[in-house]
């Protein structure tokens, strides 16, 4: 941004900027589509305040996400405060429709109870859970008996 073209700073602009930030464990979708952004507001004192909801309490990525949010918002030239909150729980229902579709396209089954998971590649329901626990806290391991692909499925929380 140049000084002559000072960016508009309103809540919508903040949210649009945060659409560039991803969770390093789920790079397919933005933290906005993931539902991690609880509040993103410009306050009367000029400061930008963002509150993030961790997908899991022990999510090791949250500190990285907090830094990435802070870095991304520096271009607005305002004080930035990023906090982690449990005021409302992050739930898998917070993932947007667009986020779910992008997850599926990336080979991740969107959140579903273990008996309702479908293969993200061929949409088969003939899938088997290999392990309730996967490479990150938020995912389980499945195998599709039809197209014979292993895949990961987001847990319902």
């Amino acid at each position, binding site marked *: 941004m140049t000084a002559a073209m000072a960016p508009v700073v309103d809540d919508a602009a903040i949210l649009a900027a945060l659409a560039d930030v991803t969770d390093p464990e789920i790079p397919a979708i933005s933290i906005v589509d993931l539902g991690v952004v609880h509040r993103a507001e410009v306050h009367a004192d000029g400061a930008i305040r963002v509150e993030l909801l961790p997908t*899991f*309490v022990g999510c*090791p990525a949250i500190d990285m996400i907090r830094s990435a949010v802070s870095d991304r918002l520096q271009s607005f030239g305002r004080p930035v405060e990023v*906090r*982690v909150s*449990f005021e409302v*729980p992050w739930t898998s229902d917070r993932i947007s429709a667009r986020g779910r579709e992008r997850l599926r396209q990336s080979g991740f089954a969107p959140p579903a109870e273990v008996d309702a998971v479908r293969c993200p590649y061929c949409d088969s329901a003939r899938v088997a859970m290999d392990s309730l*626990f996967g490479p990150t806290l938020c995912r389980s391991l499945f195998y599709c008996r039809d197209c014979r692909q292993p895949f990961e499925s987001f847990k319902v*929380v």
Partner: protein
Amino acid sequence: MTTARSTVAPADPATERALDGLILSMADDEFVIGFSDSEWTGIAPILEEDVAMSSIAQDELGHARALYELLAVVRADGSTADSIAYDREPAEYRHAQLLDHGRGDWAMTIARRYLYDTADGARLGGLAASSFAPLRELVDKIRREERYHVMHLTTWLERLARHEGEPRERLVAALEELGPDAATVFTPIDGEASLVDAGILGEPMAALEARWRATITPIFVGLDLPMPPPGALDGGRSNHGEAFRWLWGEFTSVRRSDPEAVW
């Protein structure tokens, strides 16, 4: 990190002390069992269990960290999650004696986790409507994760119990060793009545223990496993023995090597 002091701290000092004891006991439980589980990382019986036990450990250590952070806010004395977690002598930890038996074999691990997770579930249920908002909010989040632990541990309990011979024998032996200490999760908190009066804790620990027994009885009866006997709970969160001293030496070793290190 997460909570403003203004939302915190009951008005009277006795209730605040009791709240301190409640959060510390929960945090120490999650920390000690989480660290114990992490001992399986790399050496669990099969790869999937290596991943599962490591994930569960990560969950529990995350819960412990969040609870220690909340406690640091309540204390407002300059404590941090790390200083509370690491800068105490072994005798000052307030986890339940159920978690003091050493890692043991896989059956011991499954038995301990099953007993703890179900007991913890009853305790968390007693906090689901807590008048202390920061704890209620955290508990709401934690319960959604613990559900997966119980699902996984129930599968293992059934698998070992139904396989006659060594699996069942080892499980029964583990339950007989751990059973008498299982109820130590419900050791009364000093000043517990004030927490119940203030609506911070829904019911006394004794009532939560009864709920826990009602939950697990049909499962133990169905699998013909020995129910944890009722026991005297005096000192149920102190008098930690040699197994814990060893564990403490492990989990504090990095911190003690350089207490000022910044991560």
